[in-house]
């Protein structure tokens, strides 16, 4: 009976399909499971993968996931003579022909053998530093599916002959700052392209120079992404810009407002954002894509808290700020940091009311008796008003924020307290002067002014880091690899003049790690090694 056999055939195909589907996850699920294994060291069951390194040292996924050594891009890493080789899609699943490491392309079977027993397709033992993992077939299939997507093609924003960057500027940015930043960016791009245009021609024409090194050259293209209106609308504007033309990375950029919406956009689109000029960075431990100079007032707050916990606890600490500004963010962070330090210090917050003079608020904060210390999260104008009023005369120690006040250690601002201590992650004047020479000459050569020097310095440094990163990625134009190589560019910190101590490291996203705590007035001793405090 034809209808019956047709029914049987359909039913059996359906049954087969159902059993197949229930046994094997969809390709998308497999890739997701593979990514979890690669990044977090978790098997499909949710348990950490286990393995052995060095022949006898047991390890688990939380310490030894793939990403640990081969990094997010899969392009591997090296430290001194120890090399974790690249295992991205293009390299792992292609034969390797370079002696003495020739091998056939990996497939699922040979990948399983390498992961479990440490033997490569050529029968060679992998380095004992590569863990021998306990994995079932499904784990290997998932990992292979993920690896086939990992750094498989150049990132968006990479054209055949161009590399597109964007810089974000918001409406509220003062014109002088905007002009300073864009001036440096444009001049840097122009110089860069002037230097490399011949390399592109060489790569095209000279047979002998058709080497990977020359394939890496691209013309740098800069787009300016202007954001208007409230920060809540920025995400939509960024999406629209990106849809129109994807960019490889965001470079420098500046906003008056909290950087968080731009940060979150970068993170969700996996677009690197290199060194924005902001006093309000997003504080997100564990995020990957935005690299900041510093945590700004949050870092200053942590440093002040470290000092307070050491010398004033337990005691009364009063902090003064204006509502809604970065001063309030600093005050919040200080309170948290003191709590985390487990001090018994009581912290009182005083906000300057509308129509109230800073001096009156200061007197209100002092109250019945002078506190052990006051922290003034105020700008220069407010501090000068307090200084002129003499309201702080009874206070022993006053702490100030360099980010808010723009003061430098040693500056004269009398009668804030017996002693006014400035928390600053910026260079001391004498440190900065020497380091600024390079940029001063660079600006002069291009006919650019020196105003807004800090903005120019930070922009220039961001460009330098992009150049460093791209020089090392060579033709492997993957965003994650670009950031990973910047993480390894430890020596470049000397090129910044605004910040005396920037330090790079894998996954470290806030480069300044400490502050000077130095008094205002003539009696500061910058030579004191204890002056630099890391919270």
């Amino acid at each position, binding site marked *: 009976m034809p209808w019956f056999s047709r029914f049987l055939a359909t039913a059996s195909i359906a049954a087969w399909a159902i059993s197949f589907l229930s046994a094997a996850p969809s390709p998308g699920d497999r890739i997701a499971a593979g990514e979890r294994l690669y990044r977090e060291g978790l098997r499909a069951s949710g348990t950490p993968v286990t393995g052995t390194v060095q022949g006898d040292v047991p*390890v688990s996924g939380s310490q030894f996931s793939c990403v640990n*050594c081969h990094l997010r891009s899969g392009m591997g890493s090296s430290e001194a003579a120890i090399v974790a080789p690249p295992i991205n899609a293009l390299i792992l699943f292609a034969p390797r022909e370079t002696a003495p490491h020739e091998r056939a392309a990996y497939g699922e079977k040979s990948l399983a053998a390498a992961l479990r027993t440490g033997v490569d397709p050529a029968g060679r033992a992998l380095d004992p530093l590569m863990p021998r993992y306990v994995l079932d077939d499904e784990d290997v299939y998932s990992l292979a599916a993920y690896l086939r997507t990992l750094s498989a093609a150049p990132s968006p924003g990479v054209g055949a002959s161009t590399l597109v960057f964007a810089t974000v500027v918001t409406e509220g940015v003062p014109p002088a700052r905007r002009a300073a930043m864009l001036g440096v960016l444009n001049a840097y791009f122009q110089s860069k392209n002037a230097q490399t245009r011949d390399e592109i021609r060489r790569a095209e024409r000279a047979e002998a120079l058709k080497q990977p090194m020359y394939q890496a050259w691209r013309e740098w293209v800069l787009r300016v992404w202007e954001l208007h209106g409230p920060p809540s609308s920025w995400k939509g504007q960024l999406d629209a810009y990106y849809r129109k033309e994807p960019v490889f990375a965001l470079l420098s950029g500046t906003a008056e407002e909290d950087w968080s919406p731009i940060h979150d956009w970068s993170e969700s689109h996996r677009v690197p954002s290199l060194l924005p000029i902001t006093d309000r960075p997003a504080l997100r431990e564990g995020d990957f894509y935005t690299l900041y100079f510093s945590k700004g007032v949050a870092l200053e707050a942590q440093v002040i808290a470290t000092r307070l916990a050491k010398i004033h606890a337990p005691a009364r600490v009063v902090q003064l700020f204006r509502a809604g500004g970065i001063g309030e963010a600093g005050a919040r962070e200080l309170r948290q940091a003191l709590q985390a330090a487990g001090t018994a210090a009581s912290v009182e917050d005083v906000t300057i009311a509308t129509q109230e003079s800073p001096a009156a608020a200061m007197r209100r904060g002092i109250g019945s008796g002078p506190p052990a210390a006051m922290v003034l999260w105020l700008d220069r104008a407010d501090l000068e008003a307090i200084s002129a009023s003499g309201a702080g005369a009874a206070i022993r120690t006053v702490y100030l924020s360099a980010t808010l006040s723009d003061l430098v250690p040693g500056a004269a601002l009398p009668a804030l307290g017996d002693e006014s201590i400035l928390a600053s992650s910026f260079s001391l004047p004498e440190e900065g002067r020497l380091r600024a020479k390079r940029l001063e000459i660079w600006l002069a050569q291009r006919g650019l002014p020196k105003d807004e020097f800090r903005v120019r310095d930070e922009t220039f440094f961001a460009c330098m880091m992009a150049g460093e990163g791209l020089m090392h990625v060579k033709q492997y134009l993957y965003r994650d690899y670009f950031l990973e190589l910047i993480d390894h560019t430890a020596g470049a910190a000397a090129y910044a003049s605004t910040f005396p101590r920037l330090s790079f490291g894998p996954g470290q996203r806030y480069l300044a790690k400490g502050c000077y705590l130095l008094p205002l007035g003539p009696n500061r001793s910058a030579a004191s090694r204890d002056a630099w405090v890391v919270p």
Partner: protein
Amino acid sequence: MKMRIPLFLAAATMLAVFTPVGATEAKSVAGPACCAKPQPKKAQYVRTVASYPVSNLRFLDQESRDVVLADVLREDGRPIALNFVFTTCNTICPVMTATFAKLRNELGESASDLRLVSVTIDPEHDTPAVLHQYAERYAAGADWRFLTGTVEEIVAVQKAFDAFAGSKMNHRPLTFLRAPGSSDWVRIDGFASAAELAAEVRSLTPR
């Protein structure tokens, strides 16, 4: 004053006193391309003996306690193992730290008779709180101190142990072992398995 003893000499002179261990010149262990057979494991490290000045440098440990290096390393009848690591390291530090963790198990009942010291080479990132978390990840007990300090002090201690490579990215796998009653350090340059390190530690402990 540092002595570099050629390996065969060191092995020969120590044979009578210590259990000799299989340290050889550090060479790649990659075998010929033909054979899939597991190869007998050759040691991947170089062993030398040296004396380092232990100074009064001050550090903070993972519990934020102020410590003086000379006190941390003060003789108490137990052997001591010391290395340099940093917590965001991608490559060699996780292996070195896992090896230290395993080393204590390897020594079995005598585990508490070994003191471990890990000094960070990235002091501005590796604060006591960060080191505390890192120590927890490797279930380090009270006998394993993690130390951080100022950049200057950390450079100084690396130089004191002839372990300063300029940048943390040029960091080398070095382990230092000291026997009870000795002022000399056994310097292990390269990767030793936990069993090899344990054998080295046992060889330090006179019976």
